[in-house]
């Protein structure tokens, strides 16, 4: 802990807290039917997006993920207002109410979505890596996907291309143990996904995704190597989602005990405790941080609710450039 600036650690904590509170609020609004459709919450996995994205320089680096994307969107620094407005389908949403929960985008912040088709963004992220190499920019791409997505053909095709073309893409399998209702070991020949790196002659590693600093360090190493040597890597970051797959999932496929065992290693609690123990975070600081985060989330709801619905005619926009 001592090796980091306190501000940096506070930043990580605050981002994780923001995601947690934002997602809790999104869940509530869903219950109130202010949000509809699929809404995949990131609660429990905060350390992954926050720790990984903290290693980046988003002036030149990029992030892509799947439909469980609110956490990553907040971690790249997107405005909670524009996210909440998007969830409510408002014209002020980051995707103008066209995309919704699964399609958060911020081109300026180099956050290229938010993709609803399992595995389909893996080649796209690879292409972003190609563009970096082509333009001779020493950026890197973080490509997040789930334990369910790793069996998709697009994974295999992409990692091979990334290796033969030396693309700076870090493939991050967020193994939250389940793809919808399916425990990952039921549908996977290997139980350690980092083994799959062998097929592509690239480094592979398992990382503890409940510990934001482990994530930060391991991803950081891969990022530095990718930046310097233009080489891809595969990381399996082991994590857990506390809620169901999406709002309609009662998650009966797992035990209370299993859930509790992960909650006992909650990434926010752990970092908070460690900071407190090391005297790096006072009770007041924590309270202030929590208040700030809650205020930001409350403001995002206010903003979203008061924003206009998109004009009906806008449905003919954003079809062709």
């Amino acid at each position, binding site marked *: 802990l001592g090796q980091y600036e306190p501000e940096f650690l506070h930043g990580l904590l605050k981002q994780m807290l923001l995601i947690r509170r934002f997602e809790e609020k999104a869940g509530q609004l869903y219950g109130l039917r202010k949000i509809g459709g*699929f809404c995949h919450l990131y609660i429990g996995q905060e350390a992954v997006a926050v720790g990984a994205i903290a290693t980046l320089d988003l002036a030149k680096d990029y992030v892509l993920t799947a439909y469980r994307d609110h956490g990553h969107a907040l971690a790249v620094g997107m405005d909670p207002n524009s996210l909440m407005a998007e969830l409510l389908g408002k014209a002020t949403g980051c995707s103008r109410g066209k995309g*919704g929960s*699964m399609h958060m985008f911020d081109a300026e912040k180099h956050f290229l979505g938010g993709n609803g088709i*399992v595995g389909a963004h893996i080649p796209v992220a690879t292409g972003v890596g190609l563009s970096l190499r082509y333009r001779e920019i020493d950026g890197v791409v973080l490509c997040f996907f789930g334990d369910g997505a790793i069996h998709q053909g697009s994974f295999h095709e992409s990692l091979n291309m990334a290796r033969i073309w030396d693309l700076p893409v870090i493939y991050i399998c967020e193994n939250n143990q389940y793809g919808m209702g399916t425990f990952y070991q039921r549908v996977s020949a290997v139980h350690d996904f980092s083994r799959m790196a062998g097929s592509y002659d690239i480094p592979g590693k398992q990382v503890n995704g409940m510990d934001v600093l482990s994530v930060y360090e391991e991803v950081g190493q891969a990022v530095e190597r990718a930046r310097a040597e233009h080489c891809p890597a595969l990381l399996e970051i082991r994590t857990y989602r506390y809620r169901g797959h999406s709002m309609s999932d009662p998650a009966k496929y797992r035990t209370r005990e299993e859930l509790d065992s992960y909650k006992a290693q909650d990434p926010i609690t752990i970092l908070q405790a460690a900071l407190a123990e090391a005297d790096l975070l006072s009770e007041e600081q924590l309270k202030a941080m929590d208040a700030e985060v809650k205020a930001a989330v409350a403001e995002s709801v206010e903003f979203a609710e008061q924003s206009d619905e998109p004009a009906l005619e806008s*449905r003919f926009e954003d079809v062709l450039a």
Partner: protein
Amino acid sequence: MPEITMRDAIYQAMDEEMARDERVFLMGEEVAEYHGAYKVSQDLWDKYGSRRVIDTPITEEGFAGVGVGAAIAGLRPIVEFMTFNFAIQALDQIINNAAKMLHMSGGQLNVPMVFRGPNGPAEYLSSQHSQALHAQYAHIPGLKVVMPATPYDAKGLLKTAIRDENPVIFMEAEMSYGLKGDVPREEYLIPFGQADIKREGSDVTIVTMGKLLFLAQQAAEALAKEGVSAEIVDLRSLRPLDEETIYNSVAKTNRCVIVDEAWPVASVGSHIGWLISRNAFDDLDAPVELVCSDDVPMPYNHRLELAVQPSVEKIARAAKKVLYLEA
């Protein structure tokens, strides 16, 4: 006659055919232990076990191809796609293997299997998850394509599909799984290629497919109040297509509106529009109208997504247009 949901009708068809024929099995994402993403397979896994109700990894191309392989080697797979949006990843297997195996092998290997799942928009899902993709399949010789609207039709058509010796695309709808309708206790089958006149009428023919039937019915009610008698032809199967029933209806009404929730260009709807225009040319007193989705990807915002899709008003307006009651 018991009233059951669409979900139960589809479940019953699978259950009965699995009980009847050992070779029938179900595979797809979450079909077994989770009882189906939309709870269509229900307790089939509990009843038939992991041998016959198989949870797959998320690999649409792969498990569609596995289905084809099983079908040419003696089994009769039912492959469930969580939705047909994801089946685009499996299209190569469907178009290049399932639809062509019989042909490429000179008649040696037929592919008796069903690809089923919901097609068309649900709600608040944006553009990747809200596509009505039946034109992609109806275009392809070697496939059969079925799209039931009611629980009765769904059960009878699915049983026929499972017994068919060819690959059948069976298209359901998320929004309809809870819809109820009468389904007899006794076994019945509904042959493919027979459209069903869901409402008789004399002034205008409304051709529908799948869940849009219910919009068409409401539009017909509204039209009736204005003195317009609409006949509704529910296609039920898109390939083979029952052209005769359509032409007979148009011969009577001389006017036609087609309702299709897909995009307009190269759609089943516009195809039928051309067929009628060509083959019932002398019967038509007005051009055939098509009520379809706007030619745009589906937006997430609810008002926008409703505006994009066919509606009761749009259908009624089109009917009045072909009757020259409105511009």
